[in-house]
């Protein structure tokens, strides 16, 4: 995972791979176009700045949620399609907690626990937000993390563990089953309606060249939490044997067993870390965007896959960088193409990267 190593490798790739060069060229043309736009006033700096900020925030969510996916992808060797619904589950559990704390005594407990299903309570009315109800938010984030850990461990024990030795594709298909079941159970309980969850957060407008970029309290909260957790995971994996054990397992699980690595324990650790991050990511995602629906995680999932693949499966830094890249692509693509294609653009970038450099930017340990 060394940065320096990555750098030199990157340089070699540029020489060896004409595809990357072409890609670079395309990027250069786009940037040139943006530059011209800025110069002629077709694009405003502050407008571009706002999009960039939006993309960064989105990227942090994707990156944070992507770490868990990346870890399970490389270690358990399957693309977990239930990951998106773990995000949703985390978000619902966390927000039920936040509603309960912020609205206790002010509304029916049942309605609060169901996160205001069918418009019975509104987060806005309860004034939920980092500044308004800091306790509710912190508690919500913590519960989101913990309950997602519990959920992932439960699903692992009941669903994935019995078929641990099967091929990655078997597990992938199984995870689709988990995704379906989970998503529609959530819908069954919490209803399919989209609800607004927060009060409008206070914001500041920062002057940027020719206008303002608005940054609100929830942006800041997201940045702090995501940054903190990413750093935490980094330290955890650097300072303990766990990180290396994970890589060894990702490489050759049978041998890892023979070597004495307690594989089941490592798997559990992976779910704990990955699940925790995922749950918190789900919570923060909802805090940041302000709405919650049973489909949120699933909609995010493909972007997360894009990010993880972009960054290189198994690489924590890859997930983060990939997340930022995908977030920025999704947000900033409107500068060049119709907004209807912004999601498509993110997928497109992923496909291009897969073709140019299938092992991802960070050349994570692919587990083919």
């Amino acid at each position, binding site marked *: 995972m060394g940065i320096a190593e990555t750098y030199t490798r990157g340089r070699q790739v540029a020489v060896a791979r004409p595809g990357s060069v072409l890609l670079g060229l395309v990027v250069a043309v786009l940037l040139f176009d943006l530059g011209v736009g800025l110069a002629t006033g077709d694009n405003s700096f*502050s407008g571009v700045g706002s999009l960039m900020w*939006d993309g960064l925030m989105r990227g942090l969510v994707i990156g944070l949620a992507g770490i868990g996916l990346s870890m399970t992808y490389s270690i358990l060797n399957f693309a977990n399609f239930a990951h998106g619904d773990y995000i949703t589950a985390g978000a619902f559990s966390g927000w039920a907690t936040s509603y309960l704390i912020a609205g206790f005594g002010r509304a029916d407990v049942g309605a609060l626990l169901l996160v205001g299903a069918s*418009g019975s309570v509104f987060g806005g009315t309860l004034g939920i937000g980092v500044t308004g109800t800091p306790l509710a938010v912190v508690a919500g984030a913590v519960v989101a993390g913990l309950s997602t850990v519990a959920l992932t461990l439960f699903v692992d024990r009941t669903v994935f563990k019995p078929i641990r030795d099967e091929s990655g594709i078997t597990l992938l298909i199984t995870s689709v089953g988990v995704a379906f079941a989970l998503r529609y159970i959530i819908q069954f309980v919490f209803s399919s309606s*989209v*609800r607004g969850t927060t009060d409008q957060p206070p914001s500041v407008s920062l002057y940027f060249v020719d206008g303002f970029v608005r940054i609100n309290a929830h942006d800041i909260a997201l940045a702090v939490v995501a940054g903190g957790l990413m750093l935490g995971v980094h330290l955890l994996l650097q300072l303990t044997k766990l990180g290396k054990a994970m890589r060894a397992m990702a490489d050759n699980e049978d041998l890892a067993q023979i070597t004495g690595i307690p594989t089941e324990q490592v798997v559990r650790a992976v779910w704990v870390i990955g699940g925790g991050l995922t749950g918190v990511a789900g919570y923060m995602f909802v805090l940041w965007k302000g709405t919650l629906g049973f489909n949120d995680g699933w909609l995010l999932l493909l972007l997360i896959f894009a990010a993880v693949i972009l960054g290189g499966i198994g690489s924590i830094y890859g997930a983060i960088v990939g997340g930022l890249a995908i977030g920025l692509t999704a947000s900033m693509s409107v500068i060049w193409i119709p907004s209807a294609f912004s999601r498509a653009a993110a997928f497109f970038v992923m496909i291009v990267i897969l073709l140019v450099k299938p092992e991802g930017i960070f050349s994570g340990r692919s587990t083919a």
Partner: protein
Amino acid sequence: IGSPDGGGGGGDDGGEMTETDSGGGDDGGEMTETDSGGGAEGPDGLVVIGYPESGIQLFRDYYSASDGNEEILVSDGLRDPAMPGQVGNDMANVTGTAPAAGGPSQEAFNELFQEEYDASPGVFTAQSYDSVAIQLLANAAAGENDGTAIRDQMRNVANPGGMEVTPDNLIAGIEAAANGEDVNYQGASSVTNFNEAGDPASAAYNIWEFNADDGSVENVEKQSFEGANPEGAGPSADSIPGGTDREMSVGILLPETGGLASVGGPMIQAAQLPAMQVNDANPAGLSVNAQLEDTQTSPSAGTAAAESLVSAGVPSVCGSASSGVNVPVSQQVFIPNEIVGCSPSSTALSVTNLDDNDYIFRTAPSDLLQGRVMAQVMANRLGADTVSVLHVNNDYGQQLAGRFVETFEGEVYHQVAFNKGASSYSSVISTALSPPDS
């Protein structure tokens, strides 16, 4: 309203504005151009055509990108009192239009609804009630559960001539129809006279605002339109066979889940009311078997649901709600199976144009008019000269936005379609708030 063959331009002379009060400029003024997501000048106003499900996210993204200086005009689809609570903003800069329940017996319906469900009726509930009521009357008049027979009685029972029937005396009306008498249903939503295309011959629109304090929607003004042929027109059977002591079937095909779930719930309640009334009273030995199916606001689920209504043998259906579902369901299920479809809320122009063999009716007015109302409200009431239009990317959004742009006299900077169910609309908002492309 607007003859169907008029295509795009027929609307202007199709209706006549009977009441105009577009003076309310008290909250319209002050166009301070600030930082809304860009340095250069964006539009004065925004038009948003969509549904609450995605509207919540859209408005959240809007309020985090802008100070709320734009005048925003929304369509009927977004008339959900929960919006300010869901958005976390009082949405004071939002004004809306919606087909009004402007019918003669509106009050009667409101009371009925209030009494049964202990809630005030929402948007399109009156139309839903009317739809089912007319179908039951037509069924009673036809004397059999047969789509074609019912089709031929639809105008007989809805258009002028005969005994006036309202929600209050629906029972009497059904009895009369069953006895072969001509009746004239005077609806809760409008006088419910059908024109040649099966659309309402007249329409009314409410202009409304959110009241964030008590979580309601306030109607601030009503505008009524009459079509070229307010009495209605079109073919109908010459005789009314009638018939007693039988069970009438009717289908209700509305969204319980999906994008329109929040609107669909009350509509379903309203649609079930006439059936309850009849079953309670059993006029002329008639009872009603009302079959409910959920469209899930999705064309494929809607078609499947409609098929199961066909299997169950219903001759007529109240539905479906949104044009995106109504058009395929009509084409694929109603028309070939010769079932009468009467939508309470599908307003798209394309419904008018369906090659429907006269099986497709609706109690909601075509968007031909709403677009024009919106253009007028935007220009006169809200005083915006430059706007961007955001519309949900489906039949309804496309056509209503198209109508608006056609009739709006100011400048339209951007017309942006957004997809339902996306997790972020910030790029859409950013496009809409940006200055026009040079």
